């Protein structure tokens, strides 16, 4: 098992991240998740600022990946989250999991995203045509994380 965890302002290259995961020669399944900055429903998004808690963020991300590795048989996990100012269509977050079996790869990627959404100290502020607003936490994200505890 090897882990690659990054919190960075720079963009990431999904192609390079995929290549790294696909090189794990015992893993027949590679699942990736990418989150991108998208248009708002009710206003024109100009940019997004991602604030985080340096020191805590890295720790929480490491713990999430470690929990996933305990729960499933995984070959390699990559988790990258950007911070700072991001424009429309930019990449925000990447989770990549290589595993021998697809079920484990899918489950681990979903698990990491569900817990990242409720546990990792990142905060989004949207800058739109109508002003700057801190994004409110979603009840559906809390429910998604809680659902894993029932299993």
């Amino acid at each position, binding site marked *: 098992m090897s882990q690659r965890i990054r919190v960075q302002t720079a963009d990431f290259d999904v192609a390079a991240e995929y290549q790294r995961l696909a090189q794990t020669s015992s893993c027949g399944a590679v699942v990736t998740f990418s*989150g991108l900055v998208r248009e708002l429903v009710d206003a024109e998004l100009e940019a997004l600022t*991602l*604030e*985080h*808690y340096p*020191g*805590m963020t890295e*720790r*929480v991300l490491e713990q999430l990946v470690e929990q996933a590795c305990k729960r499933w048989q995984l070959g390699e996990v990559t988790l990258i*989250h950007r911070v700072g100012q991001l424009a429309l269509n930019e990449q*925000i*977050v990447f989770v990549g999991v290589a595993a021998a079996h697809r079920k484990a790869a899918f489950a681990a990627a979903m698990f990491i*995203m569900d817990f*990242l*959404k*409720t*546990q*990792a*100290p*990142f*905060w*989004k*502020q949207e800058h739109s045509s109508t002003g700057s607003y*801190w*994004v*409110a*936490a*979603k009840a559906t*994200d809390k429910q998604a994380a809680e659902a894993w505890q029932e299993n």
Partner: protein
Amino acid sequence: MVKVKFFAALRERLQCAEMQIASQPDDSVAAVRARLIEQHPHWQRELLDNDVLCAKNFAFVGHQEPVRSGDELAFFPPVTGG
């Protein structure tokens, strides 16, 4: 001393990103928060908001968590990354 940090909407509303506060014997998160409100009465509503989360030394903690000199506390709203 205990270092206290605030993030995101809470940081903006309190107009404070980081401060120091004297620690006391048998200190706890709840006790530190009470002293922060004593010093800044207009912080009361924000800091007592049930949604506000607290971390001690980079890990989530509850309000009964003991606090010692040298610890770093952080208060922040529910997270919205990903």
